[in-house]
């Protein structure tokens, strides 16, 4: 089963994707902490798609996968913008004064930290951020 959402690039539409993740996560009996982590990662991926995609919107797919390593909740966020080099994304900046992060660019870092497995495929016209959370894994 895969839930597919074709979403317009409008303010707070990322919450629609987060709600879908929450419902599927609950159905899979994922721990609430895991659901929250996946929801935040999904929000960040959607924000990137809204910011860097084109005006026609983006697609979110929520589903499950079984492989030799176990069972996964899988979220894909696809946009058709200019694309980017995931290895060149700065992992959040440091402010001059206190060493804290005060600027943008944290989305991909958060996604990678909150999810168990993240793959990014990006080229001009197509970006897919594929995020997986292990079902029944450690918190």
């Amino acid at each position: 089963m895969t839930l597919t959402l074709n979403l317009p690039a409008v303010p707070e539409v990322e919450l629609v994707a987060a709600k879908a993740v929450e419902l599927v996560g609950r159905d899979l009996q994922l721990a609430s902490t895991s659901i929250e982590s996946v929801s935040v990662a999904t929000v960040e991926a959607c924000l990137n798609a809204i910011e860097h995609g084109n005006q026609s919107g983006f697609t979110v797919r929520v589903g499950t996968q079984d492989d030799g390593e176990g069972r996964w909740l899988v979220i894909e966020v696809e946009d058709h913008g200019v694309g980017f080099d995931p290895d060149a994304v700065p992992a959040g900046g440091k402010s001059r004064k206190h060493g804290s992060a005060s600027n943008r660019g944290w989305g991909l870092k958060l996604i990678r930290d909150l999810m168990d497995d993240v793959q990014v495929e990006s080229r001009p016209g197509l970006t897919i951020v594929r995020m997986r959370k292990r079902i029944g894994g450690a918190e």
Partner: protein
Amino acid sequence: MNDEQLKLSSELMAGGVGLVAASGYINNEGGQAIADVINGLLKQGATALLIDLKGTRIINSIGVSILLEVLEKLMERNGRLAFCNLTPTIARTFEIMGLAEYASIYSDRTEALEELARLTHPD
């Protein structure tokens, strides 16, 4: 998504502690709304701020960035910033983005207010 609509309340408490209670989704607009409320508390004389996030499940990176700007403003004034009632994911987000390094994090409002009172008035 109504449960994610941001609700804010604020109060200047004894000892110059400004309390901000925020529940709902904190994005760029929500973060800015919190910053505006905090600016008001600072003008009223607050020297320490407690942000209670009970009821907030999602804060995005832009919202956290705005809170970092609030933190820097407070640190320039030798003020204190504290949070309470964070979900584990929000606490982790604060840790990743550096906010937890400079702000204090407490489990609940009672503990936070007691500790802030002790720190701001050690006698």
